[in-house]
């Protein structure tokens, strides 16, 4: 068999087969191929895949991997965009798809306890029928898992009002290399005992520990919500409208923006749908904003009126509002953006940079200027309300544009950091941004991070090749 597949020794393979019986361990090359990549489109083949169903297996696995110095990579739906799940140094991929049970939903404590493999949208649906609410909603909400969301501290569209995943994580059980289990946090909504290791692990991207259980904070479900999709002639108009909304005293649950190139990609996507006529506005607007308000019915009705008055400052060319179930088609437009960009170019580099909220216009205009300079198209969309932009560099590898795209990415990061921004608001550093990490994080800070990493994972077996190691 080819050396493409990093081999584990026969005794290592036997260990895995014994610990994960039946279809719980995969060692055959053809079965491993599907576990090589994620939505970053980067790929590397693992030596094995295991599928735990309980924490005891994770403990035993990490005890063994720690002793044997075998790399371990956590994976659920592999929707990550920076290669966090790619097993670049062989070893064992841990698939969490079979640890997918909701263990407890407690409407008195406003707490849920879940295994990492639960799909976020399915969890939210289950809560809805009980009058409860878990706000984080990354664009991948229907296809990504709570474990993955915690591992990457996923943000999402409601982050503007409700915060990111970390803000809804009360505690977790984390298995360390060596097999020790940390029971962190509690079911209390306030808890300042000791160092906040819970928040440290949220966003650690599998570099410190594997999670076996997550304790999540819940909220009462808002009585209703309403959304408005508003098209403008250009981006400055859209920004003026957004500023007017905040000035009017509104804090939307979400505020997303789309620039003209993004709208062009969406027009190509929805133009092939049966109901294409509904989306003809995509061709007319040069920018769009998508708002969601939530709360009591009376408050949302009143706020929507205020919002519609406020956005008129930007002279909208299109406005559609909807409430309840009718909002979904509006949000489907937003969720369709990322894949739709492939209508414009076969390859894209999507960077989820963030800038201080007052610097968004400079960031978007700067990205387009970089694209013009290098002869590439660029598209920008994202979470206007919190300054988190999805800056996309569109290119065609087959036409030799990969190097120009790489230069554009580098210039974008330089621009963002000069504006006081960050390389990543949501996706993480992973493989894709590793070489720029030192531009943002200084040597002293990096040194502390590496020493922290060594405390959790002295042999560097946890997701090696990403972030710090």
């Amino acid at each position, binding site marked *: *068999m*080819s050396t*493409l597949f990093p081999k584990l020794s026969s005794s290592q393979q036997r260990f895995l087969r014994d610990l994960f019986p039946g*279809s719980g361990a*995969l060692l*055959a*090359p*053809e*079965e*491993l*191929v*599907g*576990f*090589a*990549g*994620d*939505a*970053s*489109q980067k790929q590397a083949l693992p030596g094995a*895949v295991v*599928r735990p169903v309980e924490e005891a297996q994770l403990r035993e696995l990490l005890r063994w991997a720690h002793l044997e110095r075998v790399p371990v990579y956590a*994976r659920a*739906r*592999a*929707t990550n965009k920076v290669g966090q799940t790619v097993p670049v140094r062989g070893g064992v991929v841990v*698939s969490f*798809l*079979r640890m*997918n049970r909701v263990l407890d939903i407690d409407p008195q404590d406003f707490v849920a306890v879940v295994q990492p*493999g639960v*799909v976020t949208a399915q969890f939210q649906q289950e809560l809805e029928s009980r009058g409860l609410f878990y706000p984080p909603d990354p664009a*991948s909400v*229907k*296809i*990504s898992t709570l474990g993955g969301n915690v591992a990457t501290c996923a943000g999402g569209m409601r982050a503007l009002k409700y915060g990111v995943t970390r803000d809804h994580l009360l505690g977790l059980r984390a298995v360390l290399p060596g097999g020790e289990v940390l029971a962190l946090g509690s079911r209390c909504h306030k808890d300042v005992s000791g160092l906040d290791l819970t928040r440290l692990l949220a966003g650690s991207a599998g570099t410190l520990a594997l999670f076996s259980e997550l304790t999540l904070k819940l909220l009462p479900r808002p009585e209703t919500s309403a959304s408005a999709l508003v098209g403008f002639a250009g981006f400055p108009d859209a920004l003026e409208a957004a500023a007017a909304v905040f000035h009017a005293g509104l804090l939307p649950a979400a505020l997303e923006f789309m620039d003209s190139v993004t709208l062009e990609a969406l027009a190509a*996507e929805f133009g092939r749908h*049966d109901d294409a006529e509904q989306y003809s506005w995509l061709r007319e607007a040069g920018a769009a904003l998508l708002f969601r308000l939530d709360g009591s019915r009376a408050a949302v009705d009143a706020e929507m009126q205020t919002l519609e008055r406020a956005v008129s400052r930007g002279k909208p060319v299109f406005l559609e509002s909807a409430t309840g179930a009718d909002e979904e088609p509006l949000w489907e437009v937003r969720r*369709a953006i*990322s*894949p*739709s960009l*492939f*209508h*414009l*170019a*076969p390859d894209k580099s999507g960077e989820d940079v963030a800038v201080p909220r007052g610097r968004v216009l400079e960031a978007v205009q700067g990205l387009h200027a970089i694209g013009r300079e290098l002869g590439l198209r660029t598209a920008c969309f994202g979470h206007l309300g919190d300054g988190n932009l999805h800056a996309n560099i569109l290119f*065609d590898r*087959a*036409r030799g544009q990969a190097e120009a795209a790489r230069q554009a990415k580098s210039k974008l990061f330089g621009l963002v950091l000069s504006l006081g921004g960050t390389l990543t608001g949501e996706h993480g550093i992973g493989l894709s941004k590793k070489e720029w990490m030192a531009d943002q994080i200084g040597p002293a800070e990096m040194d502390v991070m590496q020493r922290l990493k060594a405390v959790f994972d002295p042999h560097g077996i946890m997701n090696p090749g990403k972030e710090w190691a």
Partner: protein
Amino acid sequence: MSRDKDERGPECILCGKCLSACPLVEATGQEELAPRSKVRLADFLQEQPGTLDEQDAARLASLCLGCGRCARVCAQGLEPARTVAGLRAAHPGWRQWLWKQWIDRASTLWPLARRSGGMLDRAPLRSLARRPEPGRLGLLLKSLQGLDRCPMRAYVSLREAPEPMEVLARSGVDAQAPDVAGGWPGPSIQSGADLAQGVLLFSGCAGQHLRPEWDAKARSLLVALGWRRTHAEFACCGSTLGTAGLLAEQHTARERNLEIWRAGGRGLVVAYCASCLNGLWAYVQEPELFVDGREAALWRERVVPLARLLKFGRFMVSDDAPEVAGYHRPCHVCGADHDAALLRTVLGSRLRELPDRCCGFGGPLRLADPALADAVARRRVADLAGLPQVLTGCTACALQLAASAPEQTTTGHWLDIFS
């Protein structure tokens, strides 16, 4: 989009949307069975020839239900089930492997053939099983399921129906003949009143051979609607053959069915199985089957679900009808679900539409790995708890549900409830 991109065709971007759509992943938690993994495996075989054991890779690729749900969520417009079929077709040992599975497994997978009216005559099937004809694969697979369950009692009757011309107008079927300068081969094309005269009933494998009562009911309903029925010896729709990678047999079946349609003046072809309809509509993906694009478009327009015509009738539901009837939406419903619309009209508040899940029939997966198909079926069965009756609009789903439903739940095609 660049020219190079067009030449390469769409590629998988590994976004992971298909994992949430795939019933196999949902039932097993096995990502290697996901559409994304299969597409990746197919690419890998091309990129790195000789690095994988092709037999093993072909076996893994064969573990697909062929439900097509992944294609509906794919932003790139990929159809992983076709990728799988292509892998199967290209693999030199696949055909032999498939028939070896049939010979080895069919007798153990066949249910006991006891029906209320006595023993089902299995002689023709046994003879087929001994000398399997590839073109009959769909029939063979369906014969594995659900034939030992009692048929359902009828409790709905059609009281009144508009004239066929009115039905055509209300159902939105385009009755105009296309303007074909120079003409197409074959009899002149039916339009308007001709279309309202007679239809070709597409019975499908199950209606022809396994549940002839479905065919009989479809015929009598067409007569009651005022249509003069036209008997036609259609071949298999071809969908199971295609899924199984038997592409030559699929092509032959499609050609034969189109010849029958042309010989009948290219009139309406009415079918009552969602999977057959999907299979028939899919002919347009093979443009060389047609004289030109307009003929392909006409075929797409003139293959019509029976429920689309029937739902304009007035029905009577007898007093002894069950209080609740569940509806299982077949994976292969393409576009509007006319079966569901008909049942909503007929049963009103009695109808309960089940969560959208695959029944687990699985086509060739029934042979390749029946345990996997059963894992999918068990999830559907869990939804049936407490329901006295479950209806569907696909013959394969109907047979699968009959095989897996709990004792207290009767299952069937919606045709079963019509007297």
